[in-house]
């Protein structure tokens, strides 16, 4: 029996307005080479200057991930050649990174698990290469430097993850926490969240670490899961046959569902790190850290705890509602207007989520505002509409953005609670369904439900079901 040892190396693009070392915009997209300046282009004679916001953002993330923040850190040059790297070195941090020794907690099948974070450091992004087809078959490549110099945080986890599930959970939690800090959109599909993995296997019970491989090119959570699952199996198979795992970099091939060796014969990875002489050291004092700490919002775990303790929500519900800051904000805005957390939770996680998913929308794009949802719920409470009608009203609200009261009025959906009016219908239904009446009197409870249904049908769903029930029972009992 083998166990897997997984560590993740995540790169997060920070959404500052300007790049880490120059004033070019970090805006995504744009025509090629229109978001560059002499500095990020690496022209002869240029010099970098640190964007203070990047350091602030980095400290924010470090705090949110419970790290020790270095009092003194610096930037180093990582020297290697690649066409997407204008200076043929990347300004990064080597031996004195911004932060170390952090952690986050994930939910596993066996409860909560703490995953260590080894280090966090700042660095600059490289440009983009465009090939015709495949990188190995294309006759030439095109380079766009818009992305060079966009600020990145590199977050390295301890090899504490033991399965693809845990790895996925870690990445999701990391993404949520970082989104809460507001420093990045963390969208894998846009490249603002990137993930590489280090994987090895070893016999259960062994202390020694097996040879690890680095897995790259996983562009979604699903790819991460599948790639890890594949690689673990592959390594186990190699060992089972008596072979040895080769230490190498492997790329995940999404189409074929396999990892492929990226071993290149000529590449020598001697990065020759040395302190960047064009930049001066950073000294981060307590006052600076506290200033940043004050800007942190309530983080996911704390918020979840509050939802469980103060609102009485289940752990599952609380986890879902806090999985994105915007969702939690929406939820709390609803409660502010309508202080019944469990009801609100049901609607947000039920009807609202269903419609958002169906239209591929995020909560931030919800056509129904928290106030509008609150109004709807109040209309149910005061009996204006039934719960069932409310659902159709809600769909209308989602489609038209109109207030519930407006829709109820325009469509004449006000619930019928007038005893006389309903009595008339009830009597009609009783007269029209003698067999059901007999069945009910004979003891079949279900028959009552049928009769209620008939009244609802006759009133096009607008009758107050509880009242209908009451009136029927009065006549039949």
């Amino acid at each position, binding site marked *: 029996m083998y166990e897997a040892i997984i560590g993740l190396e995540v790169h997060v693009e920070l959404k*500052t*307005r*300007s790049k880490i070392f*120059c*004033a*070019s*915009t970090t805006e995504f997209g744009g*025509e*090629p*080479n*229109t*978001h*560059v*300046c*002499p500095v990020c*282009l690496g022209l002869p004679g240029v010099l970098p*200057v*640190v*964007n*203070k*916001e*990047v*350091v602030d953002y980095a400290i924010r993330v470090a705090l949110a991930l419970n790290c020790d923040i270095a009092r003194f850190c*610096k930037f180093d040059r990582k020297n290697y*050649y690649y*066409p997407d790297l204008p200076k043929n070195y990347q300004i990064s941090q080597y031996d004195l990174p911004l932060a170390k020794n952090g952690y986050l907690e994930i939910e596993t099948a066996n409860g909560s698990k703490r995953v260590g974070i080894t280090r966090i450091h700042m660095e600059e992004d490289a440009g983009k*290469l*465009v*090939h015709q087809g495949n*990188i*190995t078959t*294309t*006759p*030439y*490549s*095109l*380079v*766009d*430097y818009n992305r060079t110099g966009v600020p990145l945080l590199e977050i390295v986890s301890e090899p504490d993850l033991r399965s693809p599930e845990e790895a996925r959970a870690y990445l999701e939690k990391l993404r949520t926490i970082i989104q809460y800090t507001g420093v990045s959109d963390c969208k894998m599909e846009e490249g603002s969240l990137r993930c590489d993995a280090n994987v090895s296997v070893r016999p259960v019970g062994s202390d020694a670490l097996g040879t690890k491989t680095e897995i790259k090119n996983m562009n979604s959570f699903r790819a991460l899961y599948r790639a890890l699952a594949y690689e673990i199996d592959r390594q186990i198979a190699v060992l089972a046959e008596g072979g040895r795992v080769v230490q190498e970099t492997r790329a995940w091939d999404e189409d074929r569902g396999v990892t492929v060796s990226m071993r*290149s014969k*000529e590449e*020598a990875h*001697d990065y*020759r790190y040395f*302190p960047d*002489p064009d*930049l*001066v*050291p*950073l*000294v981060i004092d307590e006052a600076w850290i506290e200033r940043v700490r004050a800007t942190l919002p309530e983080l996911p775990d704390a918020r979840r705890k509050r939802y469980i303790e103060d609102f009485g929500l289940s752990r599952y519900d609380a986890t879902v509602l806090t999985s994105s800051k915007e969702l939690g904000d929406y939820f709390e805005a609803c409660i502010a207007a309508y202080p019944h957390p469990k009801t609100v939770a049901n609607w947000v996680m039920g009807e609202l989520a269903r419609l958002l998913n169906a239209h591929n929308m995020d909560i931030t794009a919800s056509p129904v505002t928290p106030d509008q949802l609150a109004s709807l719920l109040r209309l149910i409470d005061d009996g204006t509409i039934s719960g069932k009608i409310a659902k159709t009203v809600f769909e209308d609200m989602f489609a038209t953005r109109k207030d519930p009261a407006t829709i109820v009025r325009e469509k004449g959906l006000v619930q019928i609670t007038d005893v006389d009016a309903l009595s008339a219908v009830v009597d009609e239904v009783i007269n029209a369904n003698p067999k059901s009446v007999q069945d009910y009197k004979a003891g079949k409870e279900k028959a009552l439900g049928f009769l209620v249904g008939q009244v609802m049908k006759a009133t096009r769903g607008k009758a107050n079901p509880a009242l209908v029930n009451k009136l029927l029972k009065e006549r039949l009992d």
Partner: protein
Amino acid sequence: MITRADVEYVALLARLELNEEEKELYTRQLGKILEYASILQQLDTSEVPPTAHVLPLQNVFREDRVGEDLPVEEVLANAPDREGNYFKVPRII
């Protein structure tokens, strides 16, 4: 001190292509220079901090403000090869 193999390794790291003559020459010249530099080993620097910067400067920053970009034609004006507004390079592998 410096061997030919060292020279070839270093040349690859530096993306330089040396002919036979140059390999010979550099093996000799670099070797001499490095012997000269090993003089530094005579000094006891165990208690001496390295001077990476002569200045006592720290925390030099700029504000997070967007400035002017270079017009794309100027970006590509010195490009040895281009396609549209991209820089063009031969195949990577």
